[in-house]
């Protein structure tokens, strides 16, 4: 019997009872990873993982992650394990240090069995732009659907039952969107709650460490491990860390939940709206007050372009260190300029380059006011609008996406309301740094879709409490795509 499709707590109990050993778990996960057909992995750490199991400190077996295989998105620096950010420019790069979150997981006894694929440098939402190509949705045996991105490989690994937990990152919705497409719980805590030391930056003011589990309890437990101040990250918060599992079963009676009208109105898929409404009835049944609230549609439509300008601008600067000189896939030239140009021309895909040009153009002195600074101003208006909702409500709740996962070869109308709002609104949680969680809502044609719940900064406990109430209502947890 396998364990990798079970919850963290289940596997932990099994270890404590002596039903299974960490070595057996790691072997199981490695075997599953090697059999993966969804292109979930950049690098399978077979030797490293087997070495790490042997070195496990048995006195720490009460730690929940003791001996548990995990997967890390390939934009987290891992010492002595290749890390490419799924970009050719970093082919061959083997970091000399580990991210703070990786160090914390390893201290708890987690065993890294693989680095997962992603959209190149986390700049994408489809899971199709990494240097290893498309990552598929494990729920679709025909391999026609995306799993979403940018944390595609991590989503695929958890939903395919290869590991019970995987680390991702979320700059616009890069964990919360794929969680919706893969029937997972995806949590992005408050900006600054988890140290980003060692996370390859995409857009610093929007980047968050985030992750996938298959149920809300596991999500809360992982947060207990990852949350906390780190002096190596000047943006990490000094706010007190709580026991995030403590309030999960609290009553949600009297909690006030806002549904944003403009977001629901932009969704055309009736199944999604229906299941969402059913989940609202679970919340009401448990005593929560649910209201439909308006936010100016102009502001909702502004979220995506604002996000694009800010993220591209920060990204072009954040990735300027990728020049092939100190590390990475250097290509020789006659001058240092030629080395840089050849390295970067060959190292980045066209999509990445276009985004860098957009970002750089927005930062030019004569353009800043109308592009970058205007986007920063609009960000303020957007966040103010959501803050006003949070003055009266404990959480905002909406579908995480307008539909099930799109087709790999699909095309979206980039100017439609549905695209501009329902497909991209979740970036508001990055702009305001709010903790935000996606969890399964239902299925359409055997493909999943999810809902998204967002709370005020540092209110992870309340957020997880309400999420638990939704999970209790839907009964949708520990979902794993069947293997073919």
């Amino acid at each position, binding site marked *: 019997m396998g364990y990798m499709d079970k919850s963290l707590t289940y596997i932990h109990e099994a270890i404590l009872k002596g039903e299974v050993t960490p070595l057996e778990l790691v072997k199981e996960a490695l075997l599953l990873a090697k059999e993966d057909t969804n292109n979930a992995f950049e690098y399978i750490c077979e030797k490293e993982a087997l070495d790490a199991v042997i070195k496990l400190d048995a006195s720490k077996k009460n730690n929940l992650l003791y001996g548990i295989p995990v997967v890390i998105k390939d934009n987290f620096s891992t010492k002595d394990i290749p890390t490419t950010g799924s970009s050719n420019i970093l082919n061959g790069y083997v970091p000399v240090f580990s991210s703070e979150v990786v160090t914390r997981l390893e201290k708890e006894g987690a065993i890294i069995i693989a680095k997962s694929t992603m959209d190149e440098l986390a700049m994408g939402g489809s899971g199709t732009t990494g240097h290893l190509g498309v990552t598929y949705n494990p729920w679709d045996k025909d391999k026609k659907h995306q799993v979403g991105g940018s944390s595609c490989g991590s989503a695929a690994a958890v939903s395919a039952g290869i590991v019970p937990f995987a680390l991702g990152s979320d700059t616009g919705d890069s964990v919360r969107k794929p969680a919706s497409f893969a029937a997972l719980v995806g949590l992005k805590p408050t900006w600054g709650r988890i140290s980003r030391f060692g996370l390859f930056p995409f857009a610093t003011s929007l980047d968050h460490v985030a992750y996938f589990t298959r149920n809300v309890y596991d999500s809360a437990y992982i947060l207990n491990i990852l949350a906390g101040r780190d002096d190596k990250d000047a*943006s990490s918060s000094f706010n007190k860390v709580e026991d995030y599992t403590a309030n999960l079963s609290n009553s949600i009676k009297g909690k006030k939940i806002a549904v944003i009208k403009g977001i629901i109105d932009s969704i055309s898929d009736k199944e999604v709206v229906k299941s969402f409404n059913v989940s609202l009835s679970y919340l009401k049944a448990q005593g929560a007050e649910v209201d439909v609230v308006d936010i100016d549609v102009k502001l909702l439509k502004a979220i995506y372009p604002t996000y694009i300008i800010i993220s591209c601008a920060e990204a072009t600067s954040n990735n300027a260190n990728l020049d092939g000189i100190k590390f990475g896939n250097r290509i020789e030239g006659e001058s240092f300029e030629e080395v840089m140009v050849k390295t970067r021309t060959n190292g980045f895909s066209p999509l990445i380059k276009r985004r860098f040009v957009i970002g750089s153009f927005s930062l030019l002195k004569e353009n800043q006011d109308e592009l970058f600074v205007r986007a920063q101003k609009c960000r303020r208006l957007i966040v103010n609008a959501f803050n006003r909702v949070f003055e009266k409500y404990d959480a905002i709740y909406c579908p995480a996406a307008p539909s099930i996962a799109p087709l790999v070869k699909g095309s979206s109308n980039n100017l439609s309301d549905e695209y501009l709002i329902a497909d991209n609104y979740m970036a508001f949680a990055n702009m305001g740094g709010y903790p935000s969680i996606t969890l399964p809502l239902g299925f359409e044609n055997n493909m999943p879709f999810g809902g998204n719940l967002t709370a005020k900064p540092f209110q992870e406990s309340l957020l997880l409490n309400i999420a638990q109430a939704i999970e209790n209502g839907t009964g949708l947890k520990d979902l794993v795509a069947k293997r073919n």
Partner: protein
Amino acid sequence: MKEVNKEVLVTSANKLMFDMSDEEYNNLLAEFDVIISQMNLIGDIEGVDEAIPMTFPFDVTNTYLREDVATPPMDRNEALRNAKDVVDGQIRLPRVVK
């Protein structure tokens, strides 16, 4: 604002130390059409001009400063192990003309 045309984009790309194909410049021009029109719409939103630009998601002002204590440096071989051209403990480049 600078007019967006291919020449401007080529200059921008070259300043970012890369080249793109003609096809990509055309794609980019199309993308700029969309972005600029969206940003113009944003410019019409009431109050946007008066808003204070937001750099951080919320007020993150703190008082932390790192104590001035040096930690042991990286081993030199380790520091340079990811560089492709190393000579005498230093990274080599074609001669940099000042």
